[in-house]
């Protein structure tokens, strides 16, 4: 069955304007992001702030990308006023929807006519729960622990029982397609709270699960274990069975990673965009999957597995602290100027060296992510094959870059990166 192209939505994470632009460049249909402290990345240094909402909504409208604001922590009484202020502002600025888990947020956003999406923090795992939330929300993400069979039963049930949201449309189901997985059931983890007073459910997870552990019994005997990362799941990757996922009736594929770098967002979004389109056009092949797998492995990852969708009985655990990415970026300097007529970019090399043939990466809030290879290097109208730190140089580049964009060189790596 060939479906309408628009029947699958690729939803990308945006932790910064760089990543937001990267998501748009990668072909995302929608982006999700958090502001201030009432979202699951409250600890992150690069959250958007209240006054960024206008610009985010504007960018979304300009590029025809839907914008979803995550407001999905648990909420205390003292948060209610801020929560309402954020929801009001989201509605007034034209943000498409709020992703919520606390009933206070769900109810308030619904009461002022702002579209609501149900967050993974609510762990939706059955049709009756969908019916319950359908009084408030049009889109719901399912818990990451369901199998595709269970997912399909739910989407079939929605059609059979004609479960519609406030918009009058059938409820749309969203699932996590790619990125980090929790060792807990979806977001509900209390490890960080118990060890560091730092609640994951207030967006302040310290990631206890990503460390190594020794296992001892009560007599102090250490148990021999193959992998000391006993609680760190590998990352979810579904690109190899995206056909089955789309067939299960899922409408929205969500990419995890608001803490990830812009090139990660662009690469992953692009791969899933291409894969979904390939399936819908009937050109989804093993060769393409191999190519996407390679690209996905080049950016941050803890090794990949299928998650629980294919009915695996046991989790698969990572064996690294950081990433297994096959490439690494190294900071070199900043953008200075772009000469659009000549197609020449000027940079200042602040550190390390750069040579012809090197792969570069440029990121910036408006630029997003630009990847290229150095073909020529010129300093004061003299050609060089290699330049050292401290010089300002020009190089041909077919995409506009801006002053103070960041310049990186991309290197291949063998071992794990941090």
């Amino acid at each position, binding site marked *: 069955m060939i479906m309408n192209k628009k029947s699958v939505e690729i939803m990308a994470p945006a932790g910064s304007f760089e990543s937001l632009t990267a998501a748009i460049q990668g072909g995302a249909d929608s982006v999700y992001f958090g502001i*201030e*402290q*009432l979202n699951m990345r*409250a*600890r992150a240094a690069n959250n958007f702030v209240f006054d960024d909402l206008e610009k985010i909504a504007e960018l979304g409208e300009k590029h025809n990308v839907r914008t979803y604001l995550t407001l999905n922590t648990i909420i*205390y009484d*003292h*948060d*209610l*006023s*801020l*929560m309402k202020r954020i929801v009001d502002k989201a509605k007034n600025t034209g943000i498409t929807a709020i992703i919520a888990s606390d009933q206070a947020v769900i109810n308030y956003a619904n009461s002022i006519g702002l579209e609501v999406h149900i967050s993974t923090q609510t762990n939706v795992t059955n049709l009756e729960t969908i019916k319950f939330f359908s009084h408030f929300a049009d889109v719901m993400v399912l818990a990451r622990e369901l199998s595709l069979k269970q997912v399909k039963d739910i989407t079939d049930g929605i059609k059979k029982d004609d479960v519609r949201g406030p918009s009058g449309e059938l409820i749309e189901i969203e699932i996590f397609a790619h990125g980090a997985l929790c060792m807990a059931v979806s977001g509900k983890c209390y490890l960080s709270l118990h060890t*560091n*007073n*730092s*609640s994951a459910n*207030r*967006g*302040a997870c310290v990631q206890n699960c990503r460390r190594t552990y020794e296992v001892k019994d009560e007599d102090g005997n250490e148990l021999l274990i193959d992998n000391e990362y006993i609680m760190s799941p590998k990352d979810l990757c579904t690109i190899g069975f995206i056909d089955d996922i789309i067939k299960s009736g899922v409408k929205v594929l969500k990419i995890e990673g608001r803490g990830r770098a812009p090139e990660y967002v662009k690469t992953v979004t692009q791969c899933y965009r291409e894969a979904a389109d390939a399936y819908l056009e009937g050109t989804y092949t093993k060769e393409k999957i191999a190519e996407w797998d390679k690209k996905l492995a080049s950016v941050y990852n803890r090794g990949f597995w299928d998650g629980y969708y294919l009915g695996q009985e046991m989790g698969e655990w990572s064996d690294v602290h950081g990433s297994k990415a096959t490439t690494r970026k190294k900071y070199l300097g900043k953008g200075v100027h772009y000469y659009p007529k000549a197609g020449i970019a000027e940079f200042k090399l602040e550190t390390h060296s750069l040579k012809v043939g090197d792969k570069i990466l440029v990121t910036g809030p408006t630029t997003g992510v630009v990847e290229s290879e150095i073909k020529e290097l010129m300093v004061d109208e003299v050609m060089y094959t290699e330049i050292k730190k401290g010089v300002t140089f020009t190089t041909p580049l077919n995409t506009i870059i801006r002053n103070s964009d960041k310049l990186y060189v991309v290197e291949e790596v063998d071992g794990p990166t941090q």
Partner: protein
Amino acid sequence: MIRITHQREKCIGCNYCVELAYERWRMSKKDGKVTLIEGKNKKGFYTALAGDDEYESNINAAKACPVKIIRVEQVK
């Protein structure tokens, strides 16, 4: 005498400090972050001086703070 310092911007509004040292901390309903009572703002760092009797409760608040933005020092 003790000096309490608070980097307010990074507060995530967990309420621990209010529970442990309610005489010194109040949750702001305006932005859901905690306010250091009698704190003076200098470039985002709020500072207040208090008596030694508040030392223990505020040390407990500093230890409990998940984002480690409270500092308590003894001053002469």
